[in-house]
């Protein structure tokens, strides 16, 4: 490689995934689990944690073997590494909580095809040292989990009148059921994107005025 890559680990390495390059709100990656499992806050949180684990573990292994993997077969190698960790998570969740396993369904195994993980392996872990990749992957994972929570919390409050299973509004609340059904996922995510875009444009306009 012609240019020298910065090997220092700073807060920026971690914070990148949290906000500036947030996988869901900025890069629009990993849409399928984002919309499918965020019908309640607890599902969103567990999906986020499972993805963070796979992201960090595969990031470490890919970075460790980055000089050993021939570039022709790198994608296949990455995906086999990712699939191995996903199988581990799948069996772990099945052992810890069967209710959660049934609620998430096929989406645990579908972490394999989450573009965030393969994207990070290809764009970051295969070019950086193991420790730095782990820090960056953890940041991305936390960013993804937060984004899932943003959706899960709103959908559960509106659609079921509860948060983490605790009833918030009492018996008289008429739940807005469509929010926990598929259309709600699209509409809530669209709403969040609209809000962020509005804030961004307002900030830019203020800078222009000054």
């Amino acid at each position, binding site marked *: 490689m012609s240019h020298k890559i910065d090997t220092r680990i700073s807060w920026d390495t971690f914070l990148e995934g949290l906000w500036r390059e947030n996988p869901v709100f900025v890069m*629009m*990656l990993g*849409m*399928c*689990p984002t*919309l*499918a499992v965020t019908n309640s806050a607890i599902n969103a949180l567990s999906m986020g944690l499972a993805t963070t684990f796979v992201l960090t573990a595969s990031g470490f292994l890919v970075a460790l073997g980055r000089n050993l993997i021939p570039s022709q077969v790198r*994608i*296949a190698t990455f*995906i*086999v590494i990712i*699939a*191995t960790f*996903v*199988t581990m998570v*799948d*069996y772990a969740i099945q052992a810890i909580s069967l209710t959660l396993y049934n609620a998430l*369904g*096929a989406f645990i*195994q*579908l972490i*394999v*095809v*989450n*573009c965030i993980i*393969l994207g990070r392996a290809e764009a970051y872990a295969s070019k950086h040292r193991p420790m730095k990749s782990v820090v960056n992957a953890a940041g991305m994972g936390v960013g993804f989990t937060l984004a899932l929570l943003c959706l899960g919390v709103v959908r559960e409050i509106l659609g079921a009148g509860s948060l983490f299973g605790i009833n918030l509004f009492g018996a008289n609340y008429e739940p807005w059921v*469509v929010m926990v*059904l*598929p*259309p*709600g*996922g*699209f*509409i809530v*995510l*669209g*709403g969040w*994107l*609209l809000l962020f*875009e*509005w804030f961004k*444009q307002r900030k830019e306009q203020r800078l222009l005025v000054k």
Partner: protein
Amino acid sequence: MPTESLSFIFLNAALSNNFVLALFLGLCPFLGVSGKLETAFPMGIATSFVILVSSILAFATNWILTTLEIEFLRLISYIVIIASAVQLVEMTMKKYSPGLFRALGIYLPLITTNCAVLGVALLQTFKSYGFLQSLFYALGAGVGFTFAILLMAGLRERLQLADLPTPARGAAISLMLGGLLSLAFMGFAGLGAH
């Protein structure tokens, strides 16, 4: 093996439990490649074909894995099968239809990470469908995916002429449209009732 009829499985996968709008599988191409009708249609067809091929291969692999009692390798084998199926489609297309191959470009290899493909393979295993049932399930999924991406592309082409507030342009309004389409598809749920 469940006793659902073949036509029910097909309609269920294509309409009432549409892969994109009800199960949220294959959203990346649904949002990414639905800008124009002329790219959306070949994308739908190519994806449907990969779904079909990998569904047949996954059925055979699952049988082998179950016979040898090494089911924990299922996920890894499925993903390898899908990657090979995409490669196969790519090579066939390059040889027999170079025009279409060039038109699809980068979207072809990206079908590997389309969750709808792995989704069909996994769901047909979870539901323990037989061979013919899996085949119709895969066909229905492909038709449903193509249908959804075509509807979305048609809507987005019209949307370009609409006068939207600036923050809503782009991703936000596409997702809202997806929500409305999904709401409409919920109406097909009645098809499942006897």
